[in-house]
């Protein structure tokens, strides 16, 4: 069996930031595993400039932040295994890992990790309507991966469902890739994401239908592909209002109805969870060190509640520092000061009318923390 000081599951912003911080704090042996072909999580499809504090890479495109973090992790000597899935844990932090080999095959590896950080991210929610399985209906994230990473358009005429920041940003990026966005559809009475993102859509002349949803998608295109989309107004109880239907010609429907935390590994480990609506579902409770109820296991990023990349990154830093402290690489006092600085930035990211809800949600998740179980 292999031994590692620190195992991090997930090489997205949270996992990479955790690995960098742990290395900086003096942890010698840091391994990050990720199921994807490339590290960076969803950062490399974020081709827009990020919001946030100019002191911390705001105004820099997500993909460039991803590249910079990756470089830093490599320079610091973080080990990264790709095409590798952490399948589960046995007691005493023994991980079962399906390691991707260079020839494409997989090998099962058992690993005893002194500390573990779980940063497995989030996944897109699905919306069901008549015809939702028609080819051409896809997650907004899927469309974003195709245009920005693979540089291929998923379709030409697109209807976007959802106006959170993902819906707004991906609509804009679809136009940047040369697609036409027919309209955006939003069930709520107001646009969910930032006004500045909505303004870009409006300037491009694309209508946003609030208080509307998709009633039906028809698949009369080639090989049964999406051919038209009917939207309908909804009442305050989200019921269709007959007679308000509008039908558009389209070949693609993208769904941006929020994300939910990927918490499979957390569940397997008997970590205490709480349900939190604004955070997207069941999330692990944790303390200000990002440690869970299970000793030596930390969490960070969307796994702990869906927010955004900057927050994930900062939470990853907290987890990395805490793991380093627990491994004896830095003193408790130093770790405390380091964390306090990061928490100040995290508080800043959770302010204002958009951040407040997340600040409350985070407080609820942390208030529910009963303490770390006896080892």
């Amino acid at each position, binding site marked *: 069996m292999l031994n590692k000081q620190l195992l991090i599951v997930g090489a997205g912003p949270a996992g990479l930031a955790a690995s960098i911080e742990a290395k900086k704090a003096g942890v010698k042996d840091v391994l990050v595993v990720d199921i994807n072909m490339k590290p960076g999580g969803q950062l490399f499809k974020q081709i*827009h*400039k*990020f*919001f*946030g*504090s*100019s*002191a911390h890479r*705001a*105004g*820099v*495109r997500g993909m460039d932040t991803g590249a910079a973090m990756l470089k830093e992790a490599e320079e610091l000597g973080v080990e990264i295994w790709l095409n590798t899935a952490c399948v589960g844990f046995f007691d005493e932090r023994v991980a079962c890992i399906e390691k991707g080999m260079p020839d494409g095959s997989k090998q099962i590896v058992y690993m005893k990790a002194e500390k573990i950080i779980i940063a497995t991210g989030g996944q897109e929610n699905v919306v069901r309507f008549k015809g939702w399985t028609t080819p051409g209906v896809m997650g907004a994230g899927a469309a974003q991966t195709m245009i920005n990473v693979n540089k291929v358009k998923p379709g030409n005429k697109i209807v976007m469902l959802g*106006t959170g920041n993902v819906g707004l940003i991906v609509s804009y990026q679809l*136009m*940047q890739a*040369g697609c036409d966005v027919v309209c955006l559809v939003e069930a709520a*009475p*107001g*646009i969910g994401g*930032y*006004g*500045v*993102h*909505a*303004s*870009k*859509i*409006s*300037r*491009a*002349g*694309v209508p*946003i239908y*609030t208080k509307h949803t998709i009633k039906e998608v028809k698949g009369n295109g080639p090989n049964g592909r999406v051919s038209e989309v009917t939207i309908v107004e909804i009442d305050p109880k989200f019921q269709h209002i007959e007679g308000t239907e509008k039908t558009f010609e389209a070949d693609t429907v993208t769904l941006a109805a929020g994300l939910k935390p990927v918490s499979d590994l957390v569940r397997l480990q008997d970590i205490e969870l709480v349900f939190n609506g604004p955070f997207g579902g069941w999330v692990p409770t944790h303390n200000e060190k990002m440690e869970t109820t299970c000793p030596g296991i930390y969490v960070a990023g969307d796994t702990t509640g869906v927010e955004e990349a900057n927050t994930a990154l900062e939470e990853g830093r907290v987890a990395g520092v805490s793991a380093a402290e627990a491994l004896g690489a830095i003193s408790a006092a130093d770790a405390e000061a380091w964390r306090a600085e990061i928490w100040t930035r995290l508080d*800043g*990211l*959770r*302010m*204002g*009318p*958009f*951040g407040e809800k997340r600040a409350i949600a985070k407080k609820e998740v942390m208030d529910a923390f009963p303490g770390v179980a006896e080892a």
Partner: protein
Amino acid sequence: MSIKEVGYISHQELIDAKQDISAARYAKGPVAVVECVQQIPCNPCEAACKFGAIKIGEPITNLPKIQEDNCTGCGVCVAQCPGLAIFIVNKTYSDTEATVAFPYEYTPVPKEGEEWEAVNRKGEYQCQAKIVKVMNPKAFDRTPVVTVAIPKEFADEVRSVKRK
């Protein structure tokens, strides 16, 4: 109707956010117009301006406010704003024309000398626009900034050109 409901900003919202520019300042030449009326945690514009003409301060969710006397209308902030929400308006360009500079991240990018269709915040056609300048230096990090000349009466309305 607010930006939250319709997806574009109204003049009243700019006034309420204290982001409208005085007539006296417009009379002095080009000036940055920040159209960012929601409290979001973001401040690269403040750091981008070496003249200290954009104030946010603490907390980071404060609305950006243009210091009219400090702003030279240089336009460095335009490409730095992640929300693409800053414009440079010059109402003194000529007797009949004003210029508006805006970020434009689509291909094809307009070229100097071309004529494009100018649109307002809602994407509606306003007037023909002459492209007078296109800047995309390395410091702009792939956000081209396009300056168009338009009849003066459209200076408060035109915020982009129609995508080709």
